[in-house]
């Protein structure tokens, strides 16, 4: 068991972990952060996406011990102090149905818009291709992202 310390959603936290515990399990079971979801446990579905130092990762493929000293952001962190324009657009365009993939999808879309404020449709598709959504058919997700992009100043 090792003690690790890292910034989680703008707060310095410490937690004891075994080397073989994944970041996903530690966030959910030891730190009470439940938005990252387990969908496949092998990096295929993207439901467990979180950001480490601003880059999206599959938290099921990261051992928690690796993030010692780094900064981890989950959807809970993005939603504070209020929902982002992207999240509001997700509501407006019905960009989710069951909602289970939404945390991962929003993490990926947030990263995309951070890096590329005005992505074209192909760039949006490519950026989201690692997030599986079984409900929406993805079109409403594209619409929400394009809407945010359109409303941003060029």
């Amino acid at each position, binding site marked *: 068991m090792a003690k690790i310390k890292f910034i989680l959603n703008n707060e310095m936290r410490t937690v004891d972990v075994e080397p073989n515990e994944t970041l996903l399990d530690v966030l959910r079971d030891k730190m009470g952060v439940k938005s990252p*979801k387990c969908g*496949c446990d092998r990096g295929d579905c993207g439901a467990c996406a979180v950001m480490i130092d601003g880059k999206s990762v599959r938290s099921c493929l990261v051992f928690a011990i690796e993030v010692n000293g780094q900064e981890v952001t989950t959807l809970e962190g993005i939603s504070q102090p209020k929902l982002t324009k992207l999240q509001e657009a997700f509501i407006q365009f019905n960009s989710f*149905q*069951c*909602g*289970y993939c939404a945390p991962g999808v929003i993490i990926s879309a947030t990263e995309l818009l951070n890096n590329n404020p005005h992505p074209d449709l192909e760039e949006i598709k490519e950026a989201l291709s690692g997030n599986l959504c079984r*409900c929406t058919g*993805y079109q*409403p997700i594209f619409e929400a992202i394009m809407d945010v992009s359109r409303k941003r100043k060029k």
Partner: protein
Amino acid sequence: MNKYKFVGKPIVRIDGREKVSGAAIYGDDIDFGPNLLYAEIVESTEAHAIIKSIDTSEAEKVEGVFKVFTGKDFPYKFGLYMKDRYIFAQDKVRFVGEQVAAVIGRTPQAAKKGAQLVKVEYKPLPVVTNQMDALKKDSVLLHPDLGEYPHVPWFFPKPKTNVAHWRKTRKGDLEKGFKEADLVFEDEYFVPRYAHCAIETHVAIGKYDLGGRLTVWSSSQSPHTQRHLFAEALAPMGLTHKDVRVIAPHVGGGFGGKAGVTMEIIPAALATKLKGYAVKLRWTRQQEFVNTYQRLGVVAKLKVGVKKDGTITALDHKIYWDAGAYVEYGANVVNAVGLSAIGPYRIPNVSIDSVCVYTNLPPGGAYRGFGYSEMLFGLESHMTQIAHKLGMDEVKFRLKNAIKEGDKTAYGADMNPNGLLECIEKVAKEIDWGKKIVSKDPKKAIGKGFSLFWKAPAMPPNASSSAFLKFNEDASINLIISGMDIGQGYQTVMAQIAAEVLSVPPSKIRVETPDTDRNPYEWQTVASHITWSSGNAVKKAAIDAKEQILALVERVFVIPKDQLYLEDEAVKCTTRKNFNLPLRDFVVNGIMTEDGTFKGGPINARGMFLPEFSSANSDPETSQGGHPNVHYTVGAGALILEVDKDTGKMHVIKAVEAIDAGQAINPDLIKGQITGGLLQGLATVLYEDMRYDEKGKLLNPNFTDYKIPTAMDVPDEIVPIIVEVPQPDGPFGARGIGEHTMLPAAPMIANAVEDAIGIRIKSMPFTAEKVAMAMLNLKNKKGK
């Protein structure tokens, strides 16, 4: 144009903020504290075998292992329509992955380590993985005791065979029908098995507390049905329905996979032997593929007779279903299609045989479409083929034979009001039917495909819904119902229905996920019946509330009720313009009269709906006589497909789908069902399928090799069209559309592939490989 204030409007979802912020709680998100136990399942490695012995001694020695259970501890059967399944395998296993034992650990690691050490000795039996083989006389029998299994009265198992149910539908005179035909055309179609692939895997937590009550938290489409089946199966433990409670949090996708009961009964049963503890079971993705329901595989043999003018005279449809090792739910898929395999057509002479066959593959069960996708792949491929053979345009052929209101269904009941012709015409126009598109790229060919679809809710004749509605002090409302929002937008739609009756905006109505202790009965969230059935119950509850409100106002203000109405969260009066009594002034605390006393009190209302006209009683040899289906939802679809002639890769340029929703309660949510359902359907025809080896082992139990569509796989354009021919007994005329949106996908692709490259493919899926190799073979043949 719209006569309603909230119905028919694209209201934003009332569960939006919690779902986009990560606040929504799903089964695996609930905390149970440090005393929670974890279950790990020991699964059968054999597809068919006698269990000779189970040695749990090594597992019990593992530090942190709390207890180990086997089938001996739970000799109980369960099943929705037929009790053919045990909680744990007893003396026999019948599919790879079947639950044989459970190891309970203090930590998930201990449980898993223990499970790896349980030794099971098997005596293998012959394995049958294909329904056609299982039908042969010399096939091994999966259930020698089939004749003794309890089942619903509308199932017809054939003891001492592998036929679990045989639905026969007969109408008119088949032989005469074929004699009248100028052309009789026969063909065969093949559909493999598919997996639902909700992104959330199954999870359930059982707790049998020291006070003697069993609570199960479960990711479920069917909390009340689960409670019922748990109570039934565990009755020998002394449990009654009131002692069993199912709490269903948000569900991370259902698609039929979380209907009825599958793995949830395991933690429910385990809990009864772990008194005082909560025990959790969560499927891994691999287990999700193997040990839940799967969509059944199909071999369909079709024979259709037509006259030169295109009139269909006869249809003989034989459908053989690979239903897996247990058919307690899957047999009803077979039943539903056996009643409806004429498709949305007017055909005078009909014979349908829908045969449910046991095989040594995982249990088949409900999957979005409930067998209709599989049936329509063959039927709608066949209709296009036969139109071509007649030299007739396939859309004109369909228009000529399409079923209309009042036409007889195969089992003799009248077809409900519907907008099928309008759907066909609108789709044909939108897709520019009849106009051939030539690709600018010589490597590509472009084709168009068309298909009709229909589906009725498959449910027992007495499946019911109910609703409670209570007002709060500020005239906001808690609507207490037990359907599940599995993503389709159920909570929002129910809020819109109540809002319409009570003139309270949906944003002031809260709908929570259910708890069977507190929420009234709902059969299940399946069959695309929930908008219709639960919607009726909600509407009645809202009317009940309205009646209570108006009666109170009538009593206090002495205004005749028929002069009172609700508008903008207030009671108003047609004869007194200035009368305006805000609901918030009295719906909880009553109305103060001149002497300071109060009249009225909290408005609590209820509503219930059961389709009293429905009946499953019919002649077992013909299916004539009953009214098994409450109504059909119909529609049409078409698409433009681009095929790369060398690589076989296909791309949908445009897809159009028209569906008759009766009355769209929320058009945006219907469009969401179309974009989502269509993609799910396209995936089944373009790349998904479950691959088994000859020993019954699934070869692709993960998303690495079972490919579900990504953002890179969507059509360029989807045009949803909503047609509205009201359903007379639906809430505001509405009927369900959720499953239907994926139904036409496979035949549309099949028909478009043929239109593009002249090759008819009759076996799903149409992978790029299959198309490319077919092209190559054709080229080589022509070369010779």
